[in-house]
C-alpha cells in the first residue's frame, strides 16, 4: 500500500509540474498587453514600463516561468491587479468559504447518491427504481447554474423558505474566524443561532452544486450493484440460504462500490467547477467567485493561482480516491 501511495505521489508531482507550464502558457498568450489592460489606456507609458519590470514581464519567457514557479512554490502568486493585495492573502480569506460549500455539497452527493443507488438496485424495476431513474436523468442533464437559478426562484423568492444571498444573514452575530467555515466556527464557539443561519444559507447553493454528481453516483451504484447481483458468487450465496439482507450488505455492496468511488472523485471535480458559477449566482464570497471575477477581469496572477489551487485540490482528491479503490479492490494494490 505504501509503495502504491509513493507511486501516486510521484505521478502527482509530475502532473502538477506539467500543469504549471500549461497555466503559465495560458497566462502569457493573452492577446494584448496585460499591464496596459490593468492600468487602462490613460496611464502614462513610464508607469506601464515600471509595472512591466515589477512583474518581470520584460524578461524572456523561461526566466518569467522561473520567477513564477519559484514564487508559486513558496506560496507567492504576486499581487492581484483586481484587489491590489497579494493573491495569497486573498486566497486565505476566500478559500474556506468555497471549501465549506464544496465539502458540504460533496457530503450531500456522496451520501444521497449512494442511498438512491442502493434503493434503486434493491428495488430494481419497481416504481422506486423508475423514480430514481427519472430524478437522475434530470440531475445529469441540468447544469449546476440552472439548478441554482431555479432553486433561488422557487425556494428563495416564491416560497421564502431559504435565504438566497451570501453566507449569513444581517443581524446574526458572525462567529470569530477559526477555520473560516461559518458552520464549523459557529459550532466550535457554541453559537447555535449563527450555526442554524449559516446552515440555511449553505443549503440552496450546495444542493444546486451536488445534483449532477449525486445523479451520476446514483446511476453508477445502481448499475454496478445490479450487474454484480447476476454473478455466480451471489447465486451461490443465495443457494446456501444466506438471507438477502446479509447478501446485499456483506457480499454485494463492497465490490459494487468501486465504480461509485471513482465517480465520486469526478463528482468532487464537477462540484468544484460548478462552484465557479454557483458562487457568482448566490453571491457566495468564496474562492471560486474570486477566481471567476479575476478571470473576467483578466487578472493574470489571480487566474494562474486559481487554476493551480483547483489542480492541487484535484491531485489530492484523486490520490484519496485511488487509495480507497485500492482498499476496496485488492487486485489493484497487489499489482
Amino acid at each position: 500500500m505504501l509503495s502504491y501511495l509513493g507511486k501516486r505521489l510521484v505521478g502527482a508531482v509530475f502532473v502538477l509540474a506539467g500543469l504549471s507550464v500549461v497555466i503559465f502558457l495560458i497566462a502569457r498568450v493573452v492577446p494584448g498587453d496585460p499591464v496596459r489592460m490593468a492600468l487602462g489606456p490613460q496611464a502614462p507609458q513610464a508607469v506601464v514600463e515600471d509595472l512591466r519590470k515589477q512583474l518581470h514581464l520584460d524578461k524572456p519567457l523561461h526566466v518569467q516561468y522561473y520567477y513564477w514557479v519559484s514564487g508559486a512554490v513558496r506560496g507567492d502568486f504576486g499581487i492581484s491587479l483586481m484587489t491590489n493585495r497579494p493573491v495569497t492573502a486573498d486566497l486565505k480569506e476566500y478559500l474556506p468559504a468555497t471549501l465549506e460549500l464544496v465539502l458540504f455539497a460533496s457530503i450531500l452527493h456522496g451520501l444521497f447518491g449512494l442511498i438512491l443507488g442502493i434503493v434503486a438496485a434493491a428495488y430494481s424495476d419497481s416504481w422506486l427504481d423508475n423514480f430514481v431513474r427519472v430524478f437522475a436523468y434530470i440531475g445529469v442533464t441540468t447544469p449546476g447554474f440552472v439548478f441554482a437559478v431555479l432553486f433561488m426562484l422557487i425556494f428563495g423568492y416564491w416560497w421564502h423558505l431559504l435565504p438566497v444571498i451570501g453566507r449569513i444573514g444581517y443581524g446574526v452575530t458572525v462567529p470569530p474566524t477559526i477555520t473560516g467555515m461559518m458552520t464549523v466556527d459557529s459550532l466550535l464557539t457554541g453559537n447555535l443561532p449563527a450555526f442554524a443561519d449559516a446552515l440555511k444559507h449553505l443549503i440552496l447553493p450546495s444542493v444546486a452544486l451536488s445534483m449532477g454528481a449525486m445523479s451520476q453516483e446514483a446511476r453508477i451504484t445502481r448499475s454496478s450493484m445490479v450487474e454484480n447481483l447476476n454473478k455466480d458468487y451471489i447465486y451461490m450465496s443465495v443457494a446456501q440460504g444466506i438471507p438477502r439482507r446479509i447478501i446485499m450488505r456483506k457480499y454485494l455492496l463492497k465490490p459494487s462500490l468501486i465504480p461509485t468511488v471513482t465517480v465520486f472523485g469526478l463528482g468532487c471535480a464537477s462540484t468544484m467547477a460548478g462552484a465557479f458559477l454557483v458562487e457568482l449566482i448566490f453571491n457566495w464570497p468564496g474562492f471560486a467567485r474570486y477566481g471567476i471575477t479575476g478571470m473576467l477581469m483578466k487578472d493574470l496572477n489571480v487566474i494562474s493561482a486559481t487554476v493551480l489551487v483547483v489542480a492541487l485540490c484535484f491531485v489530492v482528491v484523486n490520490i484519496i480516491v485511488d487509495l480507497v479503490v485500492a482498499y476496496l479492490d485488492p487486485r489493484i494494490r497487489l499489482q
Partner: protein
Amino acid sequence: MTSPSLMAHKTGPTVQRRDVLRRAWYNFSRNRLSVVGLVIVLLVVLLAVIGPYIAPYPGHAKAFVDFRNSNQRPSVRHWFGTDYIGRDILSRILFALRSALLMGVLVLAIAVPVGVVSGVVAGYLRGSLAEMVIMRVTDIFLAIPAMVLALAIASVLAPNLRNAMLAVTVMWWPWYTRLVYGLASSLRNEYFVRAAELTGASAGHIMFREILPNCLAPIMTKITLDMAWVIMIGASLSFVGLGEQPPIPSLGNMVSDGAKYMPDQWWMTVFPAIAIMLIVLPFNLLGDGIRDLFAMGEER
C-alpha cells in the same frame, strides 16, 4: 483475381450489413427512452435549422429595442414573454439553439479525431517515446476539471463563440485519448492484430484499419453523451459572458441576464433554462441507448 468465390464474398457483407442494421434498430427501438431521445434530438436539430424561419419575431435576435413591449408576461403574442427591452424570448431561444448545437458539433469534430488518433498511436506503440509523451500530456489535462481550465483559457482570449469553442476543444481531446488508449492497448494483443503484423502490414494499416474499427462502438457512445456535456459547458461559459456576445442570443447568457429580473420577470430566465435542459436530456437518453445496444452486441 475474379474468382467466383471472391465475387460471392463481395455480395456477402452488404446483405449481412443490412441484416445487422435491421437487428440493431430492433434492439435500439426496444428501449423506449432512447427512441424518445432520438426523436427529441432530431426535433431540436430541426428547430435549430428552421428556427430563424419560424421564429415569430426574427428581428429580435439582433440589436432591437421596443420598450413599450418590455417585461411582457407569456401570452398568445409572446409565448415565452419578452425581456427587459421588449425582445421576444421564444424567438431568441430559437436562434440560440444554433450556437448551442454548433458548439457541440464543432468542438467534437476537432477534439475527437485528435484524441482518437493520439489514443490509437499511444495504445498500439506501447513502451515507445510517443506513448510516454502522449499519455503524460493527457494526464496533465485530465488532472483538472475541464470547465475550470476552459474558463481560464476563454477568459484570457477575446470573448466570443469561436474562442469559447477553442477553449473547450483544448480540454476535450484527452478524454478520447484515454478511452481509445485503453481499448487499443488491449486490442493489440488480439490474434487478428498479430496476424496482420505477421503478414507484414504497416503500423499505420494496423492502427487505423485493424484496431480503430474495433474501437468505434465506445467512441460513438461517448460522442453522443459528450454532445450533452459540451453543450452544458458551452452554456456555462456563455452564462458568465465568455461565449456569443450580446446582442446575439445564447442560452447561458439569457439565463444570467434574466436572473437579474427574478422573481418578478421569472420567464426571462426560466424558459432559456428549460431550453438548456431540453437539448441536453435527449443526447443523454440517446447515448445510453447506444451504449446498451453495443453492450448487447458484445454479449451475443
